[in-house]
């Protein structure tokens, strides 16, 4: 900035009546379900639960109130309407997955505080400086890799300034350069794809294992199990989506010298690794090792390891409570609470089973068709609402479907929904990663949609093939 006086901020608050309208619609739907006659095969509580599910869908899709507040509302409305006792609702917070989430967020905040995530990102990127095409593959792989160890949205926020600085140094004109478009889309898609890989990448993953552990009998999935199930999808999807981007936006840039220079500049700026940064790295590696080898329930479990890592970070002075307050999004825990109680309510009242029965009475019972429908529907829903919201709404239905269709286990249905739920490629509003990278100005909504449609179609095929041949065929889940 040559002259700071040139920068000013206009005052233009954006008001909207839409929020009030959607809140009214949500409550009207619930009231309608409350007063309507109960259909055959469904209990009165089940009917109200379906109303709560619809209300949740409206609130989570249109977001007239924060997602976390909608989560709280869903929790309290169940005991208020007498569907589930308050004790049952709040006991779901005792779930391991909640504390795993808290621990994982504290670990991620230590990475962010000491800029270790930036160092890892730059190191990774520096291996891909051969050509512009390879460089974009580097961006995508680096984002995916980092999303294995920290939440995807944090990774998108980290990569935005790194990639933007490189593009500025290369004098890439926003929206006009295909290289600029691909680079930013690689950040958005890389984060989404990477977030499928481990339980840390997206909050919907711990939510899924939380749902499964609440089943009767419980299904227990540890850190390594999740990697075993999800990694083939990550490894197939990443290069294919990258190829789609290359075909959709042929790169016009041939010289990568200024990008190399900028990465070197940024590496120089990060300086030598400091003691506390090293401590965070050691704790991170230690935690991942424990998660991979000792997170089964006969050993320590996921949450104990995550909280152990948090305690170690405090004891080593790497993080303070102020950092936790600044960087741990407590709202997601409340959203989690709403989502998990929604699942418990749907299961206990028989609403999920009734809904699944209704769906498959209409379309018939076919294993492959059911898998395909679950994938397509989840991908469509996750593109118009928050990922975790889409997974929270569809998981209870998916688990009920598992009881109706021979060949679909609750674990299979959950994995299909959880992993499809992370693949929101088409719209800016689909995921914060898309919105963050879109705000850089390097691609248009049309570019995102164009690439996203093809990428999502490929993803549907990949998940279907993996579900049929790997999950059912090899792992027999």
């Amino acid at each position, binding site marked *: *900035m*040559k*002259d700071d006086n*040139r*920068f*000013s*901020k*206009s005052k*233009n608050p*954006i008001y909207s009546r839409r929020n009030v309208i959607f809140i009214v619609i949500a409550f009207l739907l619930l009231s309608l379900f409350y007063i309507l006659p109960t259909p055959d095969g469904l209990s009165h509580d089940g009917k109200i639960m379906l109303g709560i599910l619809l209300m949740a869908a409206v609130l989570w899709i249109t*977001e007239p109130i*924060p*997602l*976390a507040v909608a989560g709280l509302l869903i929790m309290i409305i169940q005991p208020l309407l007498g569907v589930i006792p308050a004790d049952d609702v709040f006991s779901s917070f005792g779930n391991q997955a909640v504390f795993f989430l808290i621990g994982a967020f504290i670990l991620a905040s230590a990475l*962010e505080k000491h800029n270790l995530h930036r160092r890892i990102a730059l190191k990774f990127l520096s291996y891909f400086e051969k050509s512009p095409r390879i460089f974009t593959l580097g961006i995508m792989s680096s984002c995916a890799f980092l999303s294995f160890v920290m*939440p995807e*949205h*944090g990774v998108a*926020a980290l990569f*935005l*300034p790194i990639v*933007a*600085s490189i593009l*500025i140094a290369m*004098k890439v*004109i*926003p*929206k*006009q350069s295909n290289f600029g478009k691909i680079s930013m889309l690689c950040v958005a898609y890389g984060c989404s794809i990477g977030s499928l890989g481990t339980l840390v990448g997206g*909050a919907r993953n711990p939510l899924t294992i939380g749902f499964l552990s609440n089943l009767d009998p419980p299904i227990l999935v540890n850190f390594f199990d999740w990697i075993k199930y999800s990694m083939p999808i990550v490894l197939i999807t990443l290069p294919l989506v990258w190829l789609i981007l290359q075909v959709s936006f042929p790169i016009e840039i041939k010289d990568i010298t200024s990008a190399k220079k900028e990465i070197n500049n940024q590496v120089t700026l990060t300086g030598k690794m400091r003691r506390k940064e090293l401590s965070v790295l050691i704790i991170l590696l230690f935690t991942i090792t424990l998660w991979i080898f000792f997170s089964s329930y006969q050993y320590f479990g996921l949450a104990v390891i995550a909280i152990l890592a948090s305690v170690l970070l405090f004891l080593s002075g790497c993080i303070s409570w102020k950092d936790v307050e*600044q*960087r*741990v*999004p407590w*709202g*997601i825990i409340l*959203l989690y609470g709403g989502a998990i109680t929604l699942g418990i309510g749907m299961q206990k009242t028989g609403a999920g089973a009734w809904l699944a029965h209704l769906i498959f009475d209409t379309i018939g019972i076919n294993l492959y068709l059911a898998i395909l429908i679950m994938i397509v529907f989840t991908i469509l829903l996750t593109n118009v609402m*928050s990922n975790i919201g889409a997974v929270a709404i569809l998981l209870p239905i998916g688990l009920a479907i598992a009881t109706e269709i021979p060949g679909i286990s609750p674990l299979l249905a959950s994995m299909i929904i959880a992993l499809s739920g992370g693949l929101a490629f088409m719209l*800016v*509003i689909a*995921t*914060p990663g898309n*919105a*963050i990278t*879109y*705000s*850089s*100005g390097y691609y*248009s*909504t*049309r*570019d995102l949609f164009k690439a996203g449609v093809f990428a999502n179609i490929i993803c549907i095929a990949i998940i279907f093939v993996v579900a049929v041949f790997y999950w059912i065929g090899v792992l027999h889940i």
Partner: protein
Amino acid sequence: MFNNILIPVSSEYYSKEVLKRGVFLAQKFKSKITLIYIIEEKTLKQADKLSDVYRTHYEIAETKKEIIKKHQITADSIIFEDAKIFFKNKGIFLQEKIIEGEYSTVVKNEVNKQKYDLILMGFEKECFLNYRLLDTVDIPIWIESGGDNNSILAVCSNLAPNKQVPIISVELAETFGWKLEMIYIVDITDSVEVDEKGIRSDKKPEKLLISKGQRFIEEMKKKGIKARLVKGSLERETTKAAETINANLVIIGRQRKKEKILGLPMKSIKKRIAEQCDYSILFIN
């Protein structure tokens, strides 16, 4: 005619064509140029809102700061750098500003603060750019699409004030040395008349609109301007005529939108013409 030109560039869309046209106009009219780079508030707010539950306010603020910083650097190192090559090196007066806000509001505020004769902007249909601007400012708006033909199509119609169109068209054709053609479109899909203040009348019989159009053509002929009468929709006939003469610039009076029914927005012909065409458009009152 255009002594003071405002060029608003949105963080959503930047095209060098706008700067090239700015130079062309500034050299013809000895104009001063004000270039403002607008960091789109709407985009930033959307990113904030979506991140709300996943990231803390501290982190969201950090990211927002980074995004704004990158936009400022983009403006400095790419757009203002280009502007320096285009304007300053040619001795054209240039003022630069960076403003965060909503495009139309920022431009409107700027026009209220300082006297401008023309707004020169680019456009792209697939971004969040709001064309409310076309309805809310009174000075001429030039939407640049590039192209290097040498012909002007002046469009008058029953849906827009027509007084200024012939005057400005003739002056621009003479200044640029471009060929001028004029059409008067009687829009039969919206059979009202718009007066010079932009007020829409009640529905009028088609015959009356055609006879008024013919009178307008006669007046133009007396002034030595070649003009013809066309019946059809303003949007379609404008596009057709522009394609026929391979127009580089279409000068058109600002049509007034139909009243809203039950609060639902009516189609904006201005916006649709701007989005569909391959030529530049100058909207005037």
